[in-house]
């Protein structure tokens, strides 16, 4: 494995001898060695820039991060254990509360795992509705990611409020199909919970008509903004080898030059029918992660338009027994969520509850490499790097 501490010359602190600093004890520092003194800084768990109850223990030399350890678990709600004592349909409401910014994709992964377990076929219209709501969720999640990222680099208000303005339209659409704006429990095994009313399609077309110009608006205030660029270009470099070694997925991996997308690598649902691309950037810094998210929103809008034009009439749910008891066995399903690969591993023992209900949450896996990426940067940049990772603590801790 490559040397994780190796940084490009421009990124590392020329004064810091990292090897010595990590072993030095703060109490032994003399006045002349004060610049070598390490300070331990606890960021979080109650900190506005940690996007939830997340704690980052950093060793600082001056303002430079020389070591950092992410501490997770403050929002642990034992969702996986709860999933084992609830029926398959009741487990859906737990998935809503994992990635609460994009609950439909987590619903979807769970539903796919049950479908593989029980051998269910999903009707055509249900697949289209899944794609429509799933891509809307992806856009809404990326909007929050970009807006809060603006907050993290010091652009208070404008990008976030503009992003929330369009997210509001998406939530209104979800309220039409699912009945609520958040925690929709919409994608169920065998299809979707309810059919979409005609207003949904009308509102979706209105949204798609304006959304491209709205992305241009975000770009006009972010991409071309030199303060934003100074804060993000070259910050938080994540080389592809390290990204792969840590199993990083999603926009973070694609910003490091690896064109891996589950929708392409292992096509599920009906994604292979649409004309779309996987956006890839090659620098692996915070700015590229932002650009990949912007580009993904444009691709999602492309998929949405095609799905909206091609949606057929028909059933929205497969024929199901009143109580689902899948045969004994195990199944793993994975889909591409807005934050990366969401995996669900279910083991059935033939009863109404899953014997094992295991989640592979993308935010959690992506967060593990934060400690390496932040090393060598200033403290303020660590906040930006964390923002560019786009974590949701509900999913990290489950």
């Amino acid at each position: 494995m490559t040397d994780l501490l190796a940084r490009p010359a421009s990124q590392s602190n020329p004064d810091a001898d990292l090897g010595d600093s990590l072993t030095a004890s703060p109490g032994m520092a003399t006045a002349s060695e004060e610049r070598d003194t390490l300070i331990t800084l606890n960021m979080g768990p109650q900190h506005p820039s940690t996007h939830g109850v997340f704690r980052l223990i950093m060793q600082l030399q001056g303002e430079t991060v020389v070591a950092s350890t992410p501490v997770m678990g403050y929002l642990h709600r034992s969702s996986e254990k709860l999933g084992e004592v609830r029926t398959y349909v009741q487990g859906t409401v737990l998935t809503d509360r994992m990635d609460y910014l994009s609950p439909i994709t987590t619903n979807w992964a769970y539903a796919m795992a049950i479908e593989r377990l029980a051998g269910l076929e999903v009707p055509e219209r249900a697949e289209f509705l899944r794609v429509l709501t799933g891509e809307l969720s992806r856009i809404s999640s990326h909007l929050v990611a970009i807006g809060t990222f603006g907050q993290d680099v010091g652009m208070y208000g404008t990008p976030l409020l503009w992003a929330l303005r369009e997210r509001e339209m998406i939530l209104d659409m979800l309220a039409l199909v699912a009945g609520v704006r958040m925690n929709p429990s919409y994608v169920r095994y065998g299809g979707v919970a309810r059919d979409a009313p005609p207003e949904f399609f009308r509102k979706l077309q209105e949204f798609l008509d304006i959304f491209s110009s709205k992305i241009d608006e975000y770009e006009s205030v972010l991409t071309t903004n030199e303060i934003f660029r100074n804060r993000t270009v070259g910050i938080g470099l994540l080389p592809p080898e390290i990204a792969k070694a840590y199993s990083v997925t999603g926009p973070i991996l694609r910003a490091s030059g690896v064109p891996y997308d589950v929708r392409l690598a292992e096509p599920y649902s009906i994604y292979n029918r649409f004309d779309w691309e996987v956006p890839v950037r090659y620098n692996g810094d915070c700015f590229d992660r932002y650009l990949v998210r912007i580009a993904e929103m444009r691709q999602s809008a492309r998929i949405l338009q095609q799905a909206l034009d091609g949606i057929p009439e028909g059933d929205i749910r497969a024929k199901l027994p009143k109580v689902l008891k899948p045969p004994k066995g195990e199944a793993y399903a994975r889909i591409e969520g807005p934050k990366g690969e969401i995996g669900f591993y279910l083991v059935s023992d033939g009863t109404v509850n899953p014997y094992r209900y295991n989640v592979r949450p993308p935010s959690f896996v992506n967060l593990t490499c934060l400690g390496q990426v932040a090393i060598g940067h200033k403290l303020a940049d660590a906040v930006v790097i964390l923002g560019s990772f786009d974590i949701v603590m509900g999913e990290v801790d489950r």
Partner: protein
Amino acid sequence: MALGLGVARGMLSTLSHLAKKPITIQYPEEQMEMPIWTRGRPRLLFEVDTGELRCTACGACALACPVDVIKIEQHPNPAGKGKVLDRFDIDMAGCIECALCVEACPFRAITMAPDFEMAAYERSTELVFDMYQLRLAGTPEVDAGMEHIQGVKRGLKSQGGAAAPTPAAAKPAGAPAPAAARTAGPVAGQATGATAAATSTSATGNQVADPKAAPAAAVASANVPAPAHVSDANPAGPPPAAAAAAPPTDFDPLTISDEDLAKLPAADRGRVYKARLKAKGVQPPTRP
């Protein structure tokens, strides 16, 4: 890029938005339009013509509930088959509004109404709603919303009643249908159509079942007889306190008493406060 040009460009983009209309909704004076199938508080439906709850105390909803907030007690019917519902409580402090109870119900007896203003001082008393407070008239609009929430019905027996319109039919286009949705909810029934709410059967059910006003009215109106239309709709005899809690639909914002004001829905209260300020010569704050 010349230094400062990017900043200027960003600011220009920001400034251009100053001229645009704000998209903020001034809650509670204005309220969002919510579809009738909005998943709010669970409600028990009763037949409009007989006033009897559709619930048969089968317990399917309590089994389906992932958070176990539905408490049902029943006893066998001495005068025939079936069961008699003694108690049906929903603890809204724990309800996650997932609508799995609605999907599980084989008798179209439970739905979710767009009720969301349920702030209370006491969790154990004010947030546990009983079968009288949860009553909602099963009008065609409400039934349509219930059917949309139920989605694909599994094992659903037809109830023999008039076929409820599909959500699409009940909600032809845009504005009129959300207005109907609002009258179906107890919160804003008076906000959108005061006259309609006073006369329609759906409003009768809502006034009976308005639980927010119930604690306040329990003291104030112990001696007040229930209005005639209320007892017509409820031969089973719900507590008169809940019945008398119906907020006044016709009021003058300047002369309304504080007691009546407390019973008003939030949207109307905001209107009263605004009118009082105006009478005093104080301009309500406006946005530039």
